[in-house]
């Protein structure tokens, strides 16, 4: 493996110049390389939106499915072949809006997958409508008087559900974000990494500078195993904390809970049909 392992040659991305997605793509490639994950052993599952196009732009197996529906196939892929590294990656609208129900239930199941959410607090591909994470009062061509719904807080929701790994990062900080992503991918169990990211075209409020000014990193003294403390941090909104909020290493993964994988991690495609047992079952009908 080398620096080119993840390159797919010249790519004409669908992203605006200055979009945080470029930086996240770059961070992703570096992270995977440093973790020595082979492209053939990686599956990136995404939904629809600008962020969801990310697997198109680097070397990996990918399942670029439906809007909001990355988590169900990602879960199924992991449990059907536990030997694969599975990342579910999309934007805030996809994961928290259209796919909100799956977000809740993926946390409950706790499969060993990493859920990366590009959170720019606005809809990009459909051109500038509010997202579930848009701030109160955020004006758009549809929310003409400003957003009146409470913004969705993925971090506090995940901690409330006792997600096994909960973190927030910022696309503008390559080094720190890489370190958070590494921990998330190496974590055994469901890991959510919400990545703040500026949208240079449709979000003139939450800009690169805004994120710089309104965030800070949880420091070394912070204890990420304390769920109550983590929840307190997650609802702090004068200044928004970045880093790993919460880790629960005591939870079994979905795969571990399945009877099937308690002996070994044999992928389902190696299953052999047991016709003798079917015959026995048929005979039970007598």
């Amino acid at each position: 493996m080398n620096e080119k392992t993840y390159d797919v040659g010249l790519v004409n991305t669908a992203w605006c110049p200055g979009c945080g997605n470029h930086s996240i793509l770059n961070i992703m490639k570096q992270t995977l390389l440093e973790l020595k994950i082979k492209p053939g052993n990686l599956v990136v599952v995404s939904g629809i939106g600008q962020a969801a196009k990310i697997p198109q732009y680097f070397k990996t197996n990918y399942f670029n499915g439906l809007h909001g529906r990355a988590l169900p196939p990602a879960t199924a892929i992991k449990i059907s072949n536990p030997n694969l590294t599975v990342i579910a990656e999309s934007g805030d609208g996809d994961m928290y809006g259209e796919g909100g129900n799956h977000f809740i239930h993926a946390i409950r199941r706790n499969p060993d997958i990493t859920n990366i959410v590009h959170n720019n607090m606005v809809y990009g591909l459909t051109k500038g409508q509010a997202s579930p994470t848009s701030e109160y009062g955020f004006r758009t061509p549809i929310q003409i008087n400003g957003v009146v719904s409470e913004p969705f807080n993925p971090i506090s929701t995940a901690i409330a559900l006792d997600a096994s790994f909960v973190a927030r990062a910022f696309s503008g900080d390559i080094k720190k974000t890489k370190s958070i992503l590494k921990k998330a991918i190496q974590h055994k169990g469901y890991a959510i990494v919400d990545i703040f990211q500026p949208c240079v075209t449709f979000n003139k409020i939450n800009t690169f500078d805004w994120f710089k000014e309104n965030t800070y990193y949880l420091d070394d003294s912070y204890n990420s195993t304390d769920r109550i403390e983590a929840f307190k941090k997650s609802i702090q909104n004068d200044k928004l904390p970045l880093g790993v909020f919460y880790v629960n290493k005591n939870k079994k993964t979905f795969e571990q809970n399945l009877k099937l994988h308690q002996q070994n991690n044999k992928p389902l495609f190696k299953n052999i049909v047991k016709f003798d047992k079917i015959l026995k079952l048929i005979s039970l009908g007598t």
Partner: protein
Amino acid sequence: MDDISIVLCGEAGQGIQTVEKLFTKIVKKAGFNVFSTKEYMSRVRGGSNSTQIRISSKPVSAYIDRIDILIPLSDESLEHVKKRISKKTLIIGEDKYIKNSKTNNKIEIPITQLAKSIGNIIYSNTIAVGLLSSICGINKKILNNTIEEYFINKKKELVKNNIKAANKGYENCLEQINKDKIKTIISPPNKKNDNIILNGVETIGLGALAGGCNFISSYPMSPSTGLLTFLSKHSKEFNIIAEQAEDEISAINMVLGAWYVGARGMVTTSGGGYALMTEGVSLAGMIESPVVIHLGQRPAPATGLPTRTEQGDLEHAIYSSHGEFPKIIFAPGTLEDGFYLTQKAFNLADKYQIPVYILTDQYFIDSFYDIPKLDIKNINNINHFIKTDKDYKRYKITKNGISPRGIPGYGNGLVCIDSDEHDEEGRITENSDIRIKMVNKRLKKLSEIKKEIIPPELYGEKDYKILVIGWGSTYHIIREAIENISRKDIAFLYFKQVYPLHNETINYLNKAEKTIIVENNATSQFSKLIRQQTGYEIKNKILQYDGSPFSVETIIKEIQKMRES
């Protein structure tokens, strides 16, 4: 008489199902052929439910209106089935439940009192089994042995009491028979019956196992849930992942994820749940993923009649999901077809990388009867995924439209799939030349699929003048009706594959002087499909959409009417 119809009617939660299960086992052991079906309300307690058990010395597998013996188990029972009670119907039961019967053809047996004497009214069901056994002339040994087997995992005392209860019912009834109040209506045939008893959902489940199904994800919905239950029950033995999803959208997307890495997955659902899955079905069309869909129909729109039957979702299955892509729809009408078609569905889905449907309904799912042991000697499964090489392209343009399907983690290539239009490598494109190539590639698979459409099957006279057409679960009902009519000019054409239609269809239709379609829906969806595909319009329609299955009598009556007109 060598064919009697017994109906038990009572409230939900009274345990009629126990009687059904136990008694069908007993009569089969005694050598009879047996059929049973139930209709029930969408509630857990109370209301009125009924179960029909047909017993005969010949194979029986269809619902009839006629009731020879009625066992009412609640105040509402007589009212609930009153349209089906005739002067000949023998009514047996507690005084309070039978006293309002207008006929004199009734026998009072104090079931509750007998049950209480054994210690609990819970034994009423076994008492009913006992009395039915004596009417059918069943050897007491068979009765006792079957009860013992049935309750094998229960406490000894419970087994003992159940046997006691059955014997009380048996003897009490025998006394009445000896008083000549009941003429024994039927006696066991002089043959051994080595058949197996299954219901519709069990054959679909067994077919899935035989087809190599190792992944099911679904959301419970009547009447389709039984399949999820069946595969969950056997998940450990067969290395199956059975997951109850948070909703049907998740269910089908999970199954597509499972196929993507080489598993063989299916969903089970009914109309409303399937409606939620339709975007996922379209995704299967675009990414060219196999998927097997069991769609157990019930009356709609919306919640409709949740526990009843209808063939109202044929068009829903064909035309649901945006965009143009091939699919296959099977509609089994017999338990054997349920098994073999489901097994086949997995292989066709895998071969053509398309959705394949098993379209059933509540009547098919909930009906039991005995059939010869399913033969699995000639069953074959072929995994169509390949080991990829370095330059693998998931959507390689090929002559027949089928691109070899690789799976991640098997070989040296990358498997890239996209719900957007894509090029051979699976990368997004808006290039119109590639778009046209990809649409053509996906549709080209249809000509391959057409080479192996299952032809419709003809029953009755080859030189027919009248042709009755049916599909799916109405099979045995129509067939018994045709056999009853027993005229030389009539035949029945049965479709077990309803989509795409077989080329021979038009020839069968053109040969008839009169064609009659039978459908459990209001708008005759299958005849519309036939007209669209062949130009032939079937003018005579027997349609029923009250939530109940056709009875043999209804079909006979309607065909006679149409024959004369």
